[in-house]
């Protein structure tokens, strides 16, 4: 066992875990945040995507000891009431079917929009290729990303005090 300190969703945590435990299982079973999902365990499906210092990583393939001292954001840290612009777009387009892959899809989409505020279809293909959706919600994932992008870009142009949309 080892003591690992890290920050999850802006909350400092001290975990008493095996150092080789994948971050995924530390988040789910030890911290108790179950929005991040297990799909493959080998960085092939993206269901376990979280942000590590802002960048998307596959938490199933990162040992918890490797992220000691770092900042993790999970789907639960994105917003309180599912009102991040990406989540709002997801709801507007009714993207989820079974919903199991969607935390990962949303975390990948948020990361994409951070680096590429106005993604083209091929930007979306590149960024979202690592996220499998067995229910086949891809058409809607694509549409929702475009919608979120439009909303976030409009929101950014608004004067600060009026920027309701896009605020976290």
């Amino acid at each position, binding site marked *: 066992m080892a003591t690992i300190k890290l920050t999850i969703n802006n909350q400092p945590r001290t975990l008493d875990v095996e150092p080789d435990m994948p971050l995924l299982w530390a988040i789910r*079973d030890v911290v108790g945040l179950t929005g991040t999902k297990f799909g493959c*365990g080998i960085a092939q499906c993206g269901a376990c995507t979280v942000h590590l210092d802002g960048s998307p990583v596959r938490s199933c393939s990162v040992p918890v000891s490797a992220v000691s001292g770092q900042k993790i954001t999970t789907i639960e840290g994105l917003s309180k009431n599912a009102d991040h612009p990406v989540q709002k777009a997801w709801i507007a387009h009714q993207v989820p079917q*079974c919903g199991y892959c969607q935390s990962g899809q949303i975390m990948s989409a948020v990361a994409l929009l951070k680096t590429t505020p106005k993604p083209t279809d091929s930007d979306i293909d590149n960024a979202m290729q690592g996220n499998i959706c067995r229910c086949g919600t891809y058409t809607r994932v694509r549409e929702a990303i475009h919608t979120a992008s439009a909303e976030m870009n409009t929101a950014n142009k608004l004067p600060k005090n009026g920027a309701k949309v896009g605020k976290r």
Partner: protein
Amino acid sequence: MNTNETLSANRRDFLKLLGLTGAALVVGISSANAEVFGGPVSGLLNINADPVGMALTPYIIIDKTGKVTLMNSQPDMGQGTHQSIPALMAEELGLSLDKVTILQTGGEKAFGGQVSGGSSSVRGNYMTLRKVGASAREMLVTAASQQWNVPANECTVADARVHHKASNRSIGYGDLVETASKLTAPTSPKLKESKDFTILGKATMRPEVPAKSSGKAVFGIDVKVPGMLYASVERSPVIGSKLVSFDDTKTKQVKGVRQVLKASRVLEKNRYDGVAVVADTYWAALKGRRALAVTWDHQGLDKFNTPAYEQHLHELAKQDGLVDHSAGDFAKALADAPTKLEAFYETPMVSHSPMEPMNCVVHWPTDTSVEIWASSQGATIIKENMVAEFKLKADDVKVNITFNGGGFGRRLFQDFVLEAAHIAKAVGKPVKVIWTREDDTQLGPFRPMTFSAFRAGLGADGMPLAFQHKVISPSIEATLGSPHKTGTVDKTMTEGISEQKYEIPNVDNRYVFAELPVPTGYWRAVTSTTLAFAHECFIDEMAHKAGKDPLDYRLAMMTKASDAKRVLTKLREVSKWDKPLPAGWGRGVAQYEFFAGLAGHVVEVSKQKDGSVKVEKVICVIDLGTVVNPDMVRAQTEGAIAMAITAATKPGITFENGAAQQANFDTNPMLRINEMPVVEVHILAEGGPVIKGVGEPGLPPVAPALANAIFMATGKRVRRLPMDLSKLA
């Protein structure tokens, strides 16, 4: 519905559970929760809190403040039953779905068969649950009209209140429920007219979508109960091997490992051995499992290889087989026909691979009572299986159904529940068993392959005089341990081939049974997913042989009015069939009618410079009659198309020395976003009150329409799935 008598007992049981053999209207007054929910078993952790209030029927519970709880009897696996089933009652009750609590039933008798499968949830419940809602509405209206002393027919309902316009009065359901619950439920309540619908037939937002967009929706794998341990099970990659011995010395050295024990996976009539490692964390259980040394006796099952088996199916194809359906005199008509053609089609086994791997939490408070939390398509099946396996009373089995992270037929089989139940019973503590993706991919049950041999004779005008589709395949049920009855056709394995609306005078469809040593199961759209490929490609071959347009050829075989004819006619229009395509493009058509419903697709493909073929667009017409949520119909059809393209173009499952050669998504790839074509879904809802399935019909026509499009674009006729799109142009 296929009601042929040769449907085996197992399959019939499934259909009964699906509510397609005639469901009785369950409207009773029950104000006691115990009566509605069976005997109390354990209150350890109930993710579905017991509803509060009084039950007007087991399905509708209203508390004094007017808060309404609707019971959803059909597990939600992404097909939208969390909305579509309560919507049937909410419509009649004048409720808005975002204001009600929806709870999932757990196999209690009062709710009949609680199984999602066969595209049957809405079909099986549409009238029944509308009547349940209407009956409750009439009880509430009666209560109000008696209180006001006005005629009941002057009262209306809206927003969970009864209104009396003439006297400008209204009263909430909460104030009426006590009186209403004492009334006798009307058995033939008046249903709303469809023109007055506010929910049904409208594209409504599904209430669970925000939870599914924020990590808050609870799936089986998310359930945690106090004192719970975790388990991972080592099973032979050769399915069916007997456990000889295991050495757990190294396993026991892994920190957190508590116990190692023999496990038993009960898949229908098959029992498979395993070794379970139980630990404080899942990670410890997994590490402990990897440290096991297990000796298996493969009992000859390791001799199974896919190429040899396919050769065997080719040999079997020489047999006459048994008649599935015949009309006229096929042999004579074929002999006399001026033009003859024949072809042989092959399809692979594939995995279900729902994104949530199999998992289950089980707790035994006593030796004779048990509580289960599972992502499962069938609460009722779990209950029945647990009663049979452990000799329990039904009321002592408490089942909690969570959202299913995909199902596709895999979660109709409760092997993962029974295995977890055995482990938890032996351990004496609540246990969560999680399968790895590798377990999930390699251990089945798989979609079986079907091979198809065709012969046809065309007249001088090119139209068919004689047609034969001979299916050579294993039987799903035989692989699940119910031996195939010699001399009978397994109708599940010839699904739909004799139901197409083509008017061909002489037909001789046949079936040849093949043994298969690995378990197979119902996969989304069952056997139609493979048979439609063969059937509709061969019809295309006939059209080309006749020198006719493939869509017009199909229509020419349908002189009588039929749903299939309407679908093809509509498809011709919406696909702009006559509009020329860019150079290097091709389009293909297919339709398939089977137990779940009917759809037809046009697929457009293009040849790429690198020698590959790109699936550009899929245009679908789905025939439904009555629609509950058109947006969900579109979503299900988009998903069905993605799943069908995966099955048609990705490697599938093959066996070497008895073990599946694919294990995870690297070797068993799924369609990804960059491979998703543009999809257009057209809903034909002019079939009147007939209700057809939504979840499955979008699959079968995809593979044949795609292969037919590839033929047009490249001149290459694909007769074997999977097709490798990278090498076709």
